[in-house]
């Protein structure tokens, strides 16, 4: 990455640079987390915008291109709207924004609301309809294809082909949707974009939004992805793209800049032998404060391993931003030794044995889950009594 001194553009050799970002999804709530965790995770999205503003200033870009889904929904609280535009204050240059499917420029939309609130900053160039924005002083034109409906089934970038711009002026496209035939899940999806749009419309760069991972389509076409990860899909999220175009027609130089705060991971661990548990424990020991984790445990464990894993999970939860655990698929199989240690004589022993066997039967998943939980409750109770008894 070639860092350029600020304002280089006005000092002789102009090197056009842009910061490409999209899918801020401001206003998103994280229902899967406890409120302790959900709030900071939501806040992180605004922090990402601040980071982008800071990076834009640092890299002295000509403009920030925001390719849609700035807001997660059309109706968000006034405070949220104001917070967002406040977060953009770190970059005083032009912000070029188009609405995406979440914040489409409908007759009444989050944008009309923001306008009524007077929250739109002066350096924001908001394209609420398909339009060409010319920046002669910066020698580029932005070809904007905002969504004006939640879903369209025709390619809104098609008009780019016929939009004329002065010779020698960079043609930068902004669009939000699915590049046809490229993304696996895009078959028949709404808001289609032709994969060769950049070539056909003679664009120097086409900044795309909608795909939350950072993805290159061709040399001039990129999805920046969301700047702050928001799901457990490991798809390269958490970046903004620094785009440098040395001259009209030149192939752009695209660099990833990290913007994300939290790292989202989903672990699937099946336990069957002791070493499995050891491996898990080792991974849990490495968990840090930027981790947003979802751990799903399956298989089976004896009582002592279970106690240890639970303890480690508890410790990891205290360190991580968020740690969600799914133990429904994990069966508890106390060994004879376990039961002996619990001093579960007489009919208590029979109950434990029966619960252990219940987990293995062809009973429904739910019934087995109940049996596991019951076994856990009983053994925990007995273990506690052992502990207090030992102390006494």
């Amino acid at each position, binding site marked *: 990455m070639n860092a350029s001194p600020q304002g280089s553009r006005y000092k002789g050799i102009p090197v056009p640079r842009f910061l490409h970002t999209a899918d801020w999804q401001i206003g998103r709530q994280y229902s899967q987390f406890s409120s302790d965790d959900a709030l900071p995770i939501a806040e992180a999205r605004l922090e990402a915008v601040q980071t982008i503003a800071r990076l834009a200033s640092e890299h002295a870009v000509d403009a920030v291109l925001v390719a849609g889904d700035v807001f997660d929904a059309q109706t968000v609280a006034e405070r949220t709207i104001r917070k967002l535009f406040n977060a953009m204050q770190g970059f005083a240059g032009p912000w070029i924004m188009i609405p995406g499917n979440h914040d489409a420029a409908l007759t009444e939309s989050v944008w009309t609301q923001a306008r009524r609130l007077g929250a739109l900053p002066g350096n924001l160039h908001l394209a609420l309809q398909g339009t060409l924005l010319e920046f002669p002083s910066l020698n580029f034109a932005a070809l904007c294809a905002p969504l004006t409906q939640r879903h369209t089934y025709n390619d809104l970038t098609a008009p780019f082909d016929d939009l004329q711009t002065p010779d020698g002026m960079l043609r930068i496209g902004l669009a939000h949707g699915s590049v046809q035939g490229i993304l696996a899940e895009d078959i028949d999806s709404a808001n289609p974009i032709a994969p060769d749009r950049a070539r056909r419309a003679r664009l120097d760069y086409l900044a795309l939004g909608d795909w939350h991972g950072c993805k290159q389509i061709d040399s001039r076409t990129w999805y920046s992805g969301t700047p702050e990860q928001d799901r457990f899909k490991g798809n390269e999220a958490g970046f903004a793209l620094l785009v440098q175009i040395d001259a009209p027609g030149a192939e752009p130089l695209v660099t990833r800049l990290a913007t994300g705060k939290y790292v989202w991971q989903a672990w699937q661990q099946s336990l069957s032998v002791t070493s499995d548990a050891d491996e898990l424990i080792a991974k849990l020991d490495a968990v840090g404060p930027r981790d947003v984790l979802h751990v799903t445990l399956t298989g089976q464990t004896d009582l002592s391993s279970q106690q240890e894993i639970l303890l480690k999970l508890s410790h990891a939860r205290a360190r991580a931003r968020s740690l969600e655990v799914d133990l429904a698929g994990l069966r508890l199989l106390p060994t004879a030794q376990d039961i002996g240690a619990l001093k579960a004589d007489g*009919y208590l022993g029979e109950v434990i044995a029966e619960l252990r066997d219940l987990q293995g039967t062809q009973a429904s998943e739910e019934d087995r889950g109940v049996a596991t939980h019951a076994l856990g409750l009983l053994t925990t109770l007995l273990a506690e009594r052992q502990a207090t008894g030992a102390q006494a």
Partner: protein
Amino acid sequence: MKLLRIKVEQLRQFRQPFELSGLMPGLNLFTGPNEAGKSTVVRAIRAAFLDRHRSSSVSDLLPWGEPSAAPTVELDFELGGQLMSLRKSFLGRKRCELKVGARPLDGEEAEQHLAELLGFEFSGRGASKPEHWGIPGLLWIEQGAGQEIAESVGHATDHLRKALDQSVGEVASSQGDDIITIIRGQRDALLTSTGRPRAAYLEATNERDGLKSRLVDLDQRIAQYRQQVDELARVLSEDAAEAQSRPWETFRSQQAQAQSRVAAIEVLKGQLAADVAAVGQLKEKQKLIEAQLESFEAQQRDLKTREATLTDAHASVLTEQAASEIRAAASTKAQADYRTSNEALELSHQEDRRAGLMRSVADGLARGTNVALAISKAQTEQSLLASFKRLAHETLLSLVDMTLLRQQQAKLNELRIRREAAATRLSFDLTAGASIALGQQALTGQGEKLISGETCLSIPGVGTLKITPGGTDLAALAREEEALLALHQALLQRVGVASLDEAELRFASHRQALVDSVHAQKTFDNLAPGGLDTLREELDNQTASQLKAQAQLDQLPVPPGQPVEAIEQATAHQAVANAFLDKVTKEASAAFLALATAQTQRDAAHRERDALLILLESPERKSRQGDINQSALNTRAEHNALQARVLTRGEEVDAARLDILAQDVDRFRRSADQSERVFRERQTHVTVLKTKLEEAGAQGLEESRAEVAARADAAGKRLGELTLRAEALDLLCGMLDSKRAASTKRLQAPLQNHIHRYLQLLLPHATLDIGENLIPGFLTRVGNRGLEAGQFSEMSYGTREQMGVISRLAYADLLKEAGRPTLIIMDDALVHSDAQRLEQMKRMIFDASQRHQVLVFTCHPAAWQNVGAHAVPIAQGA
């Protein structure tokens, strides 16, 4: 444990030492009547073991009236293969000595040793209480306590459990019951007894549901918001389109066209109406002409009618004339007939009157004679009456005087008799010829004299004897008689008679005269009821009326020569003639009237015919008829022409459909109004929608929804956790309970077996369940209606007592197997059992006595004869 000897001293009724020795190792039967001391022996055994020798709460052991006594019990027994001897004294001398084989133990040490061996405890202080009695409390059945078992089992539970554990060789679970309590507590914190959520679980459910419904509500509002956004877009585009096209203006010009068409048709319609009116007028005119022509014809017809009427009237007059003449003749004849009948009637009346008058004359004559006769008889009777009345007057003597006279006479007689009775009686019988003088009176012969006053009796030759009667009132009587006599004489004199007899005679004559005068008066009254004058007046009247009738008779005309019709017949004839005359007269006048009418009608018909004839024949009339005929022709032609034009114009108006044209006008006007209104309303709608959307946008609906969704998810997660926990706890509870029950059942099997063994002897095929607390619970047996089951506590007293004994025998067996000492004492047990049950119970007790020493105390030796033991009588002071 086997008791060998019992000795008591200074204990209740056993003031002197009392000893039972040679007790059998099995069954021992002690008998004796009430108060003999059976219960005292039992009490002594209990005291020896269960009461502390230092206890001051055993004063019930003292003999009556010996507060300083020292109740003492001595027991020899074999326990655990060792011979032991216990001597315990209370109150007056507190001592406890125990010899275990050769080893002596003393005081509390001895007591504690026994307690451990037998399985009981002592109370800390005070009297020994049931909760300390342990095994003895269970196996020593006190009088009347055989059926009470729950409590005594409760006090021996630990011993029984140990015995059970020992016999089964396993334990229930050392911490199982605690765990059950904890798990159940945790379960009950989340679930109700019926398994429904409660407390935190219920709250979590409610919260999740509440959030879900809020979510639904928000979703609806968001959907509404989105729909409104779409609507706004649609409405705005419509508005723009219409502002361009302005459809209402098209409608307005269409309306104007339709209106002018309506106006043209209206004009045509006016012309048509005028034509129709003209046709109407022509029609009226035609009608008038026709009416006129018709009136001319009518007049001609009228003339003919009048001619005919006149002819008819002439004929009528002729007919009526003839009829009238006939009626007049008939009338004349009827009048003559009527006169004749009238005259005959008058003659009949005259003759009838004559006959009447003649009868009056004759009658008057006869009656006058009779009256004159009556007058003369009455006069005779009148004079007779006068003479009777005179006589009555002459012999007048009042009944008062007569009565007084009679009374005076009676009184005088009475006085005389009284005087004679009081007077001195002087009887004398004088020699013949001799005489004496009494007073002035000379007495001779025989006789008797009454001397009522001082009288001198002079006897010739002898002298004078002066006799004074002794009675004092004799003189008064004489005076009274004298006075009365004077009154009597005076009255006789006033009445005018000499004596009473004469008065009586005169009084009778008077009365006869009175009767006679009454008779005479009645006779007279019959003859002349109104008096003589009336009779005379009647005679005069008779005479006068007779004369008057005669005068009238004389004035009557001479009677006709021929016989006269009777008056009724003549009257009838006259009435017939009269009626006929009326009828004929009426007919005649009617005929006359008819004739007059006919004549009048004929004259009128004549006049009318003449008048009409003059009118019709006049020249003006003829020329007018010609004019009218011409006018009729003209009018018809005019009417036909006009009618044709009306038809043409009418068709034109109809074809134009004025109603539809008017509707067209209305339709276009409404369409214009409508489209203009829609246009304006749409603009209002836009404003409203915009406002709404701005409002909704400001509420941050979707952000709120995301928040609520997060909370709903969290609540759902928590609910899921609670559900899992509740279900797991519920599962645990169920499993723990059932495992525990199974374990308990297994553990109690030996006891159950013992009970079963005894129970079969009493109730074949019955089962008595032992509850968890080792107390008998359900008894199931074969009854009249198949299997019957009932709680121990609900059974009859007798059955409970039997079950109590059975259970105790079973407990004893269990304890024995566990190596615990057993001694069974029954003090008057099973007294409520019937003979049959008692037989079976005795079999059980005998069976039990093969393993345990059993002491049976009873006051019914006969009932226990066959129990298989020698009956030892207990007698006080024995």
